[in-house]
């Protein structure tokens, strides 16, 4: 049995005790310079604590007091390490545990990503029916105000909407007739306001209860069926309540990825990636469903269900080369899909508007050039 020098703190006061430790079978006896025993620690209760490599710092498990024994003598440290492997003097145990931790963290990350990517859209799908349409409506009324103020400034003194004043009235009447027909054909019963916006963009934007058709879209359309295809597609989004669905999804994804994975080091990128990937996977499905809806409506109206595909191909095909940053899936895929499901259908037997009405509709924004 040998004695070694050590430093001891009793955990009650900060007084430094220069002590001698004796390593007995099963325990360490700590005594002061006068030979009086200060404390006796059983190996079974020992625990190693954070200290620089040159020191072995010991304390007791499950102890209210933070009593500490600092042992600088390497022989003593070695001997204690042998007598009490639980303290894991070499750190091998800690390293093995760390490896297990890392493996678990990997597994957790992997399963988290999978379950969140699949789970959040699934939760959003279940929640959508639970959100009353009136809530959606309130949100979109607020958004409507913002859209108007956003575009109003760029339009100088001209009104935000087309179809204003006597010059544009016939076009507006034709447009409203078309919308009513489409709603009837699609059996669409939700509250809805469709307006034409004075902007040269070939696009349409949908908010719950609102469809904004840009002037550029009407300019590009060659016949009523092409325009009707776009609008029934947007009706499909509304009927499927895709706006609130994507809002729920985006909120869920940002929260979970933003905070669970932490912005400590770039959770922002994770959120960004998650949004894009989920958009790729899920907005494609939403678009395909809206396309199906549009085809059904056009077939019911005995109009040409393929006109939309042609229109898309002509207008978007030139620019939208499947960029990852657009919500709509690659146009060729959608065109092919629409053509496939409409193969057995007619190419339209009834025209949605008289030629004169179509001509008027093409001029719906001409009053304020």
């Amino acid at each position: 049995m040998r004695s070694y020098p050590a430093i001891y703190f009793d955990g009650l006061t900060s007084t430094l005790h220069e002590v001698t430790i004796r390593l007995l079978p099963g325990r360490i006896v700590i005594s002061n310079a006068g030979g009086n025993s200060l404390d006796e620690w059983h190996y079974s209760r020992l625990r190693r604590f954070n200290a620089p490599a040159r020191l072995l710092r010991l304390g007791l498990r499950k102890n209210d007091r933070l009593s500490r024994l600092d042992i600088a003598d390497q022989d003593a440290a070695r001997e204690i390490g042998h007598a009490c492997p639980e303290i894991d003097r070499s750190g091998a145990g800690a390293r093995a545990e760390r490896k297990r931790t890392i493996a678990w963290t990997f597994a957790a990350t992997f399963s988290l990503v999978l379950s969140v990517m699949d789970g959040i859209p699934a939760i959003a799908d279940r929640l959508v029916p639970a959100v009353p349409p009136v809530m959606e409506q309130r949100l979109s009324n607020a958004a409507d105000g913002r859209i108007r103020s956003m575009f109003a400034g760029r339009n100088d003194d001209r009104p935000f909407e087309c179809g204003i004043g006597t010059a544009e009235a016939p076009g507006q009447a034709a447009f409203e007739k078309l919308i009513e027909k489409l709603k009837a054909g699609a059996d669409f019963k939700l509250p809805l306001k469709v307006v034409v916006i004075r902007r040269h963009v070939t696009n349409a934007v949908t908010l719950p209860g609102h469809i904004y058709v840009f002037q550029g879209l009407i300019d590009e359309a060659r016949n009523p069926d092409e325009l009707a295809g776009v609008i029934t597609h947007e009706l499909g989004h509304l009927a499927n309540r895709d706006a609130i669905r994507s809002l729920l999804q985006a909120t869920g994804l940002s929260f979970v990825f933003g905070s669970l994975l932490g912005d400590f080091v770039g959770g922002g990128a994770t959120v960004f990636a998650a949004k894009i990937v989920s958009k790729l996977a899920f907005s494609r499905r939403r678009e395909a469903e809206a396309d199906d809806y549009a085809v059904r409506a056009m077939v019911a109206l005995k109009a040409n269900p393929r006109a939309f595909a042609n229109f898309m191909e002509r207008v978007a095909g030139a620019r939208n080369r499947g960029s990852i940053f657009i919500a709509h899936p690659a146009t060729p895929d959608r065109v092919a899909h629409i053509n496939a499901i409409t193969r057995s259908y007619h190419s339209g037997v009834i025209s949605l508007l008289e030629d004169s009405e179509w001509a008027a509709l093409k001029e719906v924004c001409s009053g304020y050039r």
Partner: protein
Amino acid sequence: MSISARDDCSASVPRRVCFNGSNRDFRRIVFRSAVLLMATLGLYRFWYKTDVRCFLWAHTEIDGLPLEYAGTAMELLRGFLTAFVIILSIYSVAFIVVLNLGGYATEMTVAAVVALLFLSQVGTYLARRYRLTRTVFRGLRLRQTGSALGYSIYAAGWWILAALTLGLGYPFTRAALERFKMRNTFFGDLGARFDAKGGWLFLRVFPIWLAVAVPASVTIVSLAQIRWRDVLVAMPGAGSFLARAEAVSPGFTESITSAAVSGAVCLAMIALLVPWFHAIIIRWWISGIRFGEIATLSHLPARNVYAAYLRFAAYVFVFVLAIAVMTIAVFPLIGLIFDGRKSQISEIVTVLLFVTIYFISVFGSIALYHTTVALPVWRNVADTIELVGDRSRLERVHAAGEASSPLGEGIADVLNVGGL
């Protein structure tokens, strides 16, 4: 005594505080963790934080006795999960309320942001309590009293003042908050306080504020003189853009030039003065700390902080070059693999590559910052601290307090205000 006879710190007998951790060991922790953080999308951060704290604490010695960090990564994880559930419920309620109130969505969002900022101050204070109670010295722990709610109200008021005075009030805000924190800080039963004055700091940082604020205001004034709406309208078109812009917004060229020059000066000033600012704040803060009658004095030379930042800048430059080369090399590769065809798979692969490059840049820069700035500054700060007063008082402190919950660290983490 054998314990105080070490290579690194023995040369500094009159200095009572010193740091003797090796750069190599620290680099190993940081870069190994950076890879793991990347692979776990950041989930590894609880272990990383704990490793770094253990390293910094254990190699910081006062009178030859190393500090001890007694926290564990599992505690941080637990605190995080608890905070996650709490904040998730707050988010959900806020989301439902916003849905219900449609028209007030903007106002509600602002209210939610304010509430979360407030909560982040609560988290910051609680996190400090966690760190202090996990800091062991001479067999006793440090601790923090005071209400986190009280602190966040107090902090909110002072931060508003700092914001309203465009940063001029920052020294006073900082001093008030440090006074609050330090008078609630104890080593066992030995109470601390903060004696440094906001006015002293104000005089030191005012020139820095001026050097940044003057060019910044020139930039703002110049930009404000341009009629942006007209210029934006005139943007598309043939011929000289400058001529067209000049026509719709007289003085455009002059304004945009002065904005560019003053903006560049402002950025250069920030880059040049950040290390100085950092050094001043540290010196002021350390020199204000009192434990009983023991005072700490900092003799941190600003040039050491400059050296750290310079090294950081050099490494970042090389790192950014490497990332750029990698990016340029990777994208043609995607084109080759997918043969120019656009498919869902190629889009997803592209996004994932983007994200990977982004992750490498972010985790890499953080690792570089921790190794080239954080550690050297910590080392220099520790090595230049002088303890003044009757240090024997440190040997007669009695234990008090108990370990606190890691919830605050969790809140701070969920709200992204957590740090090392």
